């Protein structure tokens, strides 16, 4: 049974058109993360939520925002996608900030046209 679910698996959006990616979890984990993985590169952390506390990585562009309305859901909003934002976006969760139970979702592959 999938425990970290990302929808959709593939998303196509237009240049400059806002897009939202979704992540849900059934693990009741406190921490949710968003990673960006460009082609042939390692995943790069964008930000994470510890409960309702939002923590942005220093080099995450302002174009990327996130929302966590409740424990189960976390959204990644890209306000004005550029061609350089085409990537795989991976959601992950962990029980706490000690990384226990770190679990990745299957990812959403974003194409910008």
């Amino acid at each position, binding site marked *: 049974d999938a425990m970290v679910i990302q929808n959709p698996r593939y998303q196509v959006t237009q240049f400059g058109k806002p897009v939202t990616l979704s992540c849900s979890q059934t693990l009741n984990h406190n921490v949710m993360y968003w990673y960006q993985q460009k082609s*042939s590169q*390692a*995943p790069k952390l964008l930000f*994470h939520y510890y409960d309702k506390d939002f923590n942005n990585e220093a080099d995450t562009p302002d174009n990327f925002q996130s929302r966590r309305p409740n424990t189960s859901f976390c959204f990644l909003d890209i306000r004005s996608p550029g061609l350089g934002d085409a990537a795989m976006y991976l959601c992950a969760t*962990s029980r706490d*900030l000690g*990384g226990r139970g770190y*679990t990745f979702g*299957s990812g959403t592959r974003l194409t910008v046209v």
Partner: protein
Amino acid sequence: AQKVTQAQTEISVVEKEDVTLDCVYETRDTTYYLFWYKQPPSGELVFLIRRNSFDEQNEISGRYSWNFQKSTSSFNFTITASQVVDSAVYFCALAKYNFNKFYFGSGTKLNVKP
């Protein structure tokens, strides 16, 4: 600063060959975790192993084995009798003890040919 180096960008082997994927890390922390993840073409990251810095015992799980050597800051991964299904990108990663993120290596793409 934390850094993970996977010098092998891509490796090709023929099925049933053994293959070792290299991982070298840098950290000033005395307590940390090391990981290996598999990423098949479908894109999900599949957890393979987590090792803490105090446990230098080598581990074997079926055809997979890991060699952790603090003296050389290496955490190498060996697949014995490789299979086509092992074809994937493999990432080595480091995390601080109270971590909220991974420091990933650049990955090694393994091609196993029939």
